[in-house]
């Protein structure tokens, strides 16, 4: 996912002389060595200073540049939220904030580096739009679309390679969700690689409708509610704190719509992450594994 983004951005820069990358001291980790070498004057290195980097990005955007601010999500927005709010959002400037290392999938780096609150922070900011691609293929499509956006933008990436998880037929559209599998028993919503665990599940009894909510804000209210109306059951899956994430966004949609349905969530429940050499061990430990998804589906199906 990281390399899909970095390669796409490199290609986009060929045709966009206004494209700038703002780096925050993590150039090798955000895979920007090649960009920095090739586009020397368009690669701006701020050092380990996230607030200044957000301010520099805003100022560059004010001067008409197409700015991608690239660092770990735990630092941006983790450290520089107030600068993102004021310098970028209140001034309504289109900086594309790329949050690397989202979620428990960050693995051995542990609690400090596993950003589990980024979606909550970003979706609460007025003007900010929030996205998280499913896999490498969607990362490419999404990056191309977001490069043309004129709004403050946040895109979450994950650390491990996540090659094509699904044969995407459609292009990515802001505000649209894609139905990956159609079914009539349970609606499963999510974003990022964790959702791919729900694909091809060996549950012969139930027909699952799996929807990729990679456009978290704006959210595709129509597709989501239409599916829940059909199935009457909803499971939201995310590698993020349950507080403030997609689950809460969907729960609000359901309550506002007046739809009656059975609802449950998979996510991190008010805990910090921790180190693990195998990130999937963390999914097992925190209740985010494929087994947990099956358990939740069975729970929803058991409710009358």
């Amino acid at each position, binding site marked *: 996912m990281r390399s899909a983004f970095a390669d796409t951005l490199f290609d986009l820069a060929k045709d966009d002389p206004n494209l700038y990358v703002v780096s925050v001291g993590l150039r090798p980790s955000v895979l920007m060595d090649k960009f920095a070498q090739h586009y020397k004057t368009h690669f701006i290195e701020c050092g380990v200073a996230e607030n200044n980097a957000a301010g520099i990005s805003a100022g560059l955007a004010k001067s008409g540049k197409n700015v991608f601010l690239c660092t770990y999500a735990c630092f941006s927005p983790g450290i520089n939220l107030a600068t993102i709010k*004021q310098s970028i959002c209140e001034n309504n400037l289109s900086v594309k904030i790329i949050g690397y290392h989202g979620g428990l999938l960050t693995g051995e780096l542990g609690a400090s580096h596993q950003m589990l609150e980024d979606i909550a922070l970003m979706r609460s900011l007025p003007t900010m739009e929030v996205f998280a691609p499913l896999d490498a293929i969607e990362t490419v499509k999404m990056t191309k679309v977001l490069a043309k956006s004129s709004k403050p933008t946040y895109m979450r990436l994950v650390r491990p390679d996540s090659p094509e998880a699904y044969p995407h037929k459609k292009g990515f559209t802001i505000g649209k969700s894609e139905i990956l599998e159609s079914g009539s028993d349970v609606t499963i919503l999510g974003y990022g690689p964790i959702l791919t665990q729900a694909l091809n599940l060996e549950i012969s009894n139930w027909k699952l409708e799996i929807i990729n909510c990679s456009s978290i804000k704006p959210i595709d209210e129509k597709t989501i509610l239409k599916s829940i109306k059909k199935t009457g059951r909803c499971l939201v899956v995310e590698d993020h704190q349950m507080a403030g994430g997609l689950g809460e966004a969907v729960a609000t949609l359901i309550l506002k719509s007046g739809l009656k349905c059975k609802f449950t969530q998979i996510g991190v429940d008010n805990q910090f992450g921790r180190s693990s050499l195998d990130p999937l061990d963390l999914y097992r430990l925190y209740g985010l594994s494929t087994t947990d998804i099956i358990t939740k589906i069975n729970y929803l199906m058991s409710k009358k």
Partner: protein
Amino acid sequence: MKLWGQPVHPLTSIARELRLTVFEMINSAKSGHLGGSFSVLDIMTVLYFTNIFNFDRDHFILSPGHLSATLYAILGKIGKIPESSLPTFSQIDSILESHTNSQVPGVEFSSGALGQGLSFASGLALGDKGHHTICLTTDGEHDEGQIWEAIMFANKYHLGNLINIIDCNHMQIGGSTDEIMPLDELAAKYIRFGWTVQTIDGHNFYQLEKALKTAKNSTIYPACIIAKTTMGKGISFMENDYHYHDVKKLSPEIYQKAISELSK
């Protein structure tokens, strides 16, 4: 006519008029940051009422967004916004928000949270090298670490088109800057960080003009102007009294006394 050895500068009457406008705005809102608004007023008068810079092309970034009243008063006087809108300062249906709002024509940066302006100005100066970006910060604001991040950045990228004017009135909301967080040798610090530094009287129009012209000619070094100012400048009993950092409702006696001083 001469006053204290120097001829009275033509900007004196404009600054006097602006002080009255700002005072009336804050008084009618029963809310505003009077001390700082008067502290920076002469600096901003020189920026906007001389032809050293042209803010249709050059940029002015006011980092302390709470000093909005002075900027709005100037934008009213130069016709960017209707002067008739100034009495709506801070009201719910007005765009003239208490802290600067970039929806106001002529305001380039929404601010209020301190310490962000110099980063924004540095990004803007980097992205628009053909013009000058003038940032106004305060000494109290230099408590913020982000300011020092921006100072390093401007040096690294040789932002010769960036000027940071520091309103040094030695006061902040809770007392003197020396007491809250001493800045000590601010000029020496900037020099060590690779900037050029001029230290001047921030209420002397001649010195301000000269310093800005010098700073404008800098090619690769970002330029810092340390403007020594007086908080509340223009109303004797408010000067250097941090209790006038921000004001609420003024008594009729205080109001009259202030107006009579400002009208002199």
